[in-house]
C-alpha cells in the first residue's frame, strides 16, 4: 500500500474536524467527521426512522437494483446479440431505441408510478431503464466488433446458426457486454436512490433513509448514508470487475 494516497484525504479530514471543533463550520449544516461516524452508528443501531436499521435499508435497495438490473441484462444481452447478428433487425429496431434512449430514466418516474404504483415495481422499472440501454448498445457493438473471419472459420467447421450464435457471437461479445454491464449497474445504482426519493411503500431503502434523515434534521445521518451509498456502489463495481477479469483472461 502506498501511504501517500491517504495523505491528502487525512489532512482534509483533520482540518475539517478542527474547523468544526472551533465552531467555524456550523454543525447543523455540515457535521464534523466524528459526528458523522456517530451518525453512522445511529443508522446501524437505532435506525431511521427508529427501528428501521441500516442493513435492512441496504438489503431493500440492493433487492430493487438486483431485480431491475437482472431483467435489464436478461433482455438486453439476447436482444443485443440478435441485433448485432441481423442487420435487418438492427435497422428495424434501432430508430425506436434512439428515440427512447435520450429520455433520462428519472423522467419516467411519474409514468412509472402511474403504471406500477409506489413500490418495488416502480423502482425496479426505473433501474431497468437506466441499465438496459448501456447493456444493449455495448452488446450490439460487441457483436459487430467480432472479425467476420471468425464466423467463416466456424462455418468451415460446419457450424449451424445456433453454433455461430452460442460459440462465436456470444463469447466474442463478452468483453463489450461487461463494459455495458458495468455502466448499467452504475447508472442503475444512481437512479435507484433518486427513485426512492419519490417514495417507497415498504419503508426501507437508502434513498428513502436519507430523505427521512433530512425530515428529522439529522445531517450527520444524511452524510453517513451518502457515504454508505458511495461505498456500496464502489464495491459492486469492484465485484463486477473481478468477474470481468476472470471472463476475459483471453484478451
Amino acid at each position, binding site marked *: 500500500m502506498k501511504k501517500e494516497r491517504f495523505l491528502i484525504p487525512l489532512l482534509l479530514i483533520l482540518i475539517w474536524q478542527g474547523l468544526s471543533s472551533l465552531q467555524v463550520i456550523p454543525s447543523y449544516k455540515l457535521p464534523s467527521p466524528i459526528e458523522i461516524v456517530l451518525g453512522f452508528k445511529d443508522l446501524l443501531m437505532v435506525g431511521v426512522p427508529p427501528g428501521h436499521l441500516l442493513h435492512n435499508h441496504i438489503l431493500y435497495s440492493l433487492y430493487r437494483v438486483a431485480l431491475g438490473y437482472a431483467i435489464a441484462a436478461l433482455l438486453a444481452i439476447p436482444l443485443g446479440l440478435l441485433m448485432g447478428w441481423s442487420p435487418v433487425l438492427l435497422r428495424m429496431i434501432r430508430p425506436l431505441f434512439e428515440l427512447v434512449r435520450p429520455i433520462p430514466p428519472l423522467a419516467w418516474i411519474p409514468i412509472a408510478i402511474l403504471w406500477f404504483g409506489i413500490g418495488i415495481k416502480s423502482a425496479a422499472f426505473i433501474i431497468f431503464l437506466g441499465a438496459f440501454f448501456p447493456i444493449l448498445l455495448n452488446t450490439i457493438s460487441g457483436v459487430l466488433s467480432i472479425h467476420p473471419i471468425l464466423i467463416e472459420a466456424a*462455418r*468451415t467447421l*460446419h457450424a449451424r446458426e445456433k453454433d455461430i450464435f452460442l460459440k462465436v457471437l456470444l463469447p466474442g461479445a463478452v468483453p463489450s457486454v461487461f463494459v455495458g454491464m458495468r455502466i448499467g449497474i452504475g447508472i442503475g445504482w444512481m437512479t435507484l436512490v433518486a427513485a426512492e426519493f419519490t417514495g417507497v411503500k415498504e419503508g426501507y431503502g437508502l434513498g428513502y433513509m436519507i430523505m427521512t434523515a433530512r425530515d428529522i434534521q439529522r445531517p450527520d445521518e444524511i452524510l453517513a448514508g451518502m457515504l454508505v451509498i458511495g461505498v456500496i456502489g464502489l464495491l459492486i463495481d469492484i465485484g463486477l470487475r473481478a468477474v470481468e477479469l476472470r471472463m476475459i483472461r483471453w484478451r
Partner: protein
Amino acid sequence: MTLEFLGISKTFAGKNSGESVHVLENIQHRIENGRFVSIIGPSGCGKTTLLRIIAGLEKASSGSVLLDGKELVQGTEEVGLVFQEYALFPWRTTLQNIEMGLEIRGVNKDKRRSTAMEYIKTFNLSGFENRYPRELSGGMQQRVAIARTLIMNPRVVLMDEPFGSLDSQTRNSMQEFLLGIWQKRTDTILFVTHNVDEAVFLSDEIIVFSKRPARIIKILKIEYPRPRDRTSEECNHGRRNVLKILEEEMKRKESVHENRRDIL
C-alpha cells in the same frame, strides 16, 4: 478424393453498381486423389477466392467444383480450410480451438477431448493446451489452426499461404512437419503460396496463375522423390522453371502498359 474445377469464373459485383472485379477466368483442372498441389501466382490474382469457393464461403459466378465427380455441396464435411490469418477463436484455448469442430458435430466431451489431445501431441503442442492464442508464437498458432481443420478428417484440405508470416527457419520446419502429417494421411492438399521455394519443396504439382483475372498459365509436375533436398540440382531446376514462367507473366503486363503508352 479427386477435386475438379469445371470452368470456374468469378466476378465480384462492385458496391453501389460501381466497377466489378473480374477475379477468376475459366479455371479448368483436375487434381487426383491424395496429391499435394500448390497454386502460385501474383498477389491479388484470385488464389484466396478460389479456395473460398471450394470451401463454400463464396459462390462461383459460373462453373462448378466436383468432388469425386459429384457437384460440391455447400458446407460438406469433405473439405477443410486453413485460413491465411489463422482465424483462431481468441477466447478459446489451444485445446478448445482444436475441439471446436467436434463440439459442433456433437461428439461427446470425453471422446473429443481424447481425440484433441492426440492432435495436440502430434502437433507438438503439449504443454500449451490451456493457453490462449495470443500467448502462442506464430508457428504454434498455425499448428493449432491446421490441427483444428484436420481433426475433422476432411478429404480435401485447402491451405491459404499458411506459412506466409513465419520466419524462414520456422517455415522450413513447418513444411517438413506438414509433409510428415500428410504422408500418413490420404488427403488431397491444395496449398496456396507465393513462395516458389516452398511450392517446389512440397508439391507433386504446381499450378501457376496469371495476374488478375487469374487463368491457369502452366501446370508443372514435380516428380522428384521425397524427402527432397532444398539445395539439390533438381529443386533448383524446378525453381528456375517456375520463376521463369512468373517473370514472363510479369513482363506480359508491362508490355501491355508500354503498348498503351505508344497509343497515347
